[in-house]
């Protein structure tokens, strides 16, 4: 049987959720965008994504398939798992960008941002000093750390705005160079948020 044919009636069904002829639930496609029937864009309207998630949950959730054939029950389970995974990834801008990067063959993952971005070197050096002082019981380092925290949060906001601009660029051009810039920015952002987290932990 052809790959795109309905498992139940054999009609040509294309890659849709249900067979147009017999209405049987079809095995899900694994690609998040294709599965949700959304254009492959990095900028996503959160409200629209949520509406799609709820609408598809109603159609696919295993609670709705208990009295159907075992095969459809299995497809419903798999499809809902993909739906939930897709929603979890695509609603978060960072995870969404990483997903697209990985699909486009960029290496994301293990070597995540261990190297200090060069423009942050001095900042990190000073920060480590302050952190040492505070850990050593010197409370006078506290205001400095508070300032550093605010600075990191500001940098994070900036990075988010920059990310948003790059997303728009990519959606317009679809080029690898923009993707490479996004990857570099994600590394920087991750590094900043790790720093912010570290400071926060010490300030608590």
């Amino acid at each position: 049987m052809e790959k795109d044919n309905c498992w139940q009636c054999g009609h040509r069904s294309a890659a849709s959720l249900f067979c147009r002829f017999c209405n049987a639930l079809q095995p899900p496609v694994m690609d998040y965008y294709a599965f949700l029937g959304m254009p492959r864009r990095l900028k996503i309207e959160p409200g629209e994504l949520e509406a799609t998630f709820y609408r598809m949950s109603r159609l696919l959730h295993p609670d709705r398939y208990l009295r159907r054939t075992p095969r459809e029950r299995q497809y419903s389970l798999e499809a809902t798992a993909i739906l939930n995974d897709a929603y979890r990834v695509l609603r978060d801008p960072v995870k969404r960008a990483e997903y697209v990067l990985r699909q486009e063959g960029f290496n994301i993952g293990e070597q995540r941002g261990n190297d200090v971005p060069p423009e942050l070197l001095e900042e990190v050096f000073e920060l480590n000093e302050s952190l040492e002082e505070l850990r050593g019981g010197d409370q006078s380092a506290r205001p400095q750390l508070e300032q550093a925290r605010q600075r990191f949060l500001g940098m994070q906001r900036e990075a988010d705005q920059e990310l948003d601009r790059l997303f728009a660029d990519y959606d317009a051009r679809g080029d690898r160079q923009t993707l490479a810039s996004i990857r570099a920015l994600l590394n920087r952002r991750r590094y900043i948020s790790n720093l912010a987290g570290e400071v926060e932990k010490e300030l608590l």
Partner: protein
Amino acid sequence: MSQIFQIDFGSQKKARVVGIDLGTTNSLAAYMDAAGPRIIPDAAGRRIVPSVVSLTEDGEITAGEPARNLLLSRPERTVYSVKRLMGRGAADVQDELRRFPFHIAPGSEAVLRLQLGDRQFTPPEISAAILRQLKKNAEAFLGEPVNQAVITVPAYFNDAQRQATKDAGRIAGLEVLRLVNEPTAAALAYGLDKRKQGVVAVYDLGGGTFDISILKLQDGIFEVLATNGDTHLGGDDIDNLLLDIALEDIQSEWSLSLARDSAAVQILRRAVIEAKEKLSFVPSVNLEFEFEGRKYQRELTRELLERLIRPIIDRTLGPCRACLRDAGLTPEQIDEVVLVGGSTRIPLVRSAVETLFRARPHTELNPDEVVALGAAVQAAILSGDVEDKLLLDVTPLSLGIETMGGVVSKLIHRNSTIPASATEVFTTAVDGQRNVLIHVVQGERELAKDCRSLARFDLKDIEPMPAGMARIEVRFLIDANGILNVTARDLRTGKEQSVDVKPSYGLTDEQVEAMIRESIESAEEDFAERQVREARLEADTILAAVDKAKSNPAWEELSAEERAAIDLALNELLLAYHSGDYLLIRAQIDKLNTVTMKLAENMMNSAVRTALKGTSI
């Protein structure tokens, strides 16, 4: 002919699915009728089945109220709070054993077993006895077989605890269509008649577990945003604390320790619980306890109670704050709070919750019943009777695999909506390696040894080849019950890869099957058989009564036709009696009841006349 119709309509008469709250202290069943969810009472009209199981002297297993009564006279053959042991190993129940009089059978290293008299039972088998009682009550009340159920579990239950609950259902002859988290079920019960949007926090302090869940309600979708909890915190802890204090007090007054006398402890426990419950409504009570002719008495005030239990209540607030954080919300963003569990009747609990969430808690529904009611709603969703509601729940704990150096690599994070999945590709480390062992754990800690071991999956019969060449894709899928399913595929051949599962705790499939067989052989009567037995008992009663009435002067007062009608109905009942058709027996009982109405009236009147004659006015 009828065959054809059966094929045409498939399994047409929709089977009834009941909702069950299998609680630490009490269990309840509910069903959905046209007006909404309702609790199913037992024959005596009681709505609650105590989660107590006892082995009687003649070797019968009894559950519920009769077992609760045996708790005093036969503590060594009776078990309560078994939910605390579900899905757990001997090593991690030491804490429970200190506080609860569980009799662990020798040789319980692999599978925990409890000793009741001369027999041994696993926790799922004990829970199955409670479920069987609920099933029986439901069948008697609904007048039809009940074989499918939705069972609730604490939201914070791990995989093994969920699996154990499902096993209990199977052993009791119930197909468990879905495990639903208790706080989610409560939200469903509350949200049923309200077309609401908003964010709801459910605070569930049960007998032995604490759960907090935050849900977003929108257009009939109940989406859990985050959940948190403590499976070792509940109303039992309050009872134990009060019990310990009372025992100490008695010891200093009587110079006698009762701590090892289980009968005394049970009596005192009941007195303490009663006092605690009363203090929710009055400012002070008298705690009284009598034992072997001695009497102990002490005044307890609400103020003292609150001071004693404040640390326990405070322990619930940490998970609440963590849950808010995980949901990405501030307390101000919580629109409503729902309280679940008997302990939430305590005024201190209410005020603590109100202070934290800055919202007045809902208390319209009975906090002991709301979970079972919600389970019945979910049952109706599954059977297709309710179409506009849908629950989207989450997994409470992260799922990961042990990697080099015992470090956990997380695959599915906690608070992920379920079903959820993750895929990993595994390979071999040495030339010709035939097996790859994957250790799956649940928990938030970085090292596998600090997490909860879930199972070891053995990828077997890998084709021998140089190290690193094999590519086996393993798919981890948490289903809508919160239970892990694992499948594997050889990426090179595309063929399914066989996986052997060795659960770290709990029972293998074969063990459960054996228990199901055993329970069918030893205890379980078929529904129809039981109905026939019960109908015959009722027939016996009315037959004897009519027989006796025939020698009453009232019999002679009837007309010949009336007497003939009674004789006819009597004979018809006798015929039905031996037919084995319980519906027919019941119909004939009703008929005999109707035709003997006048006879009964006459007898009553003559009795009144006799009585009046004997009275001098």
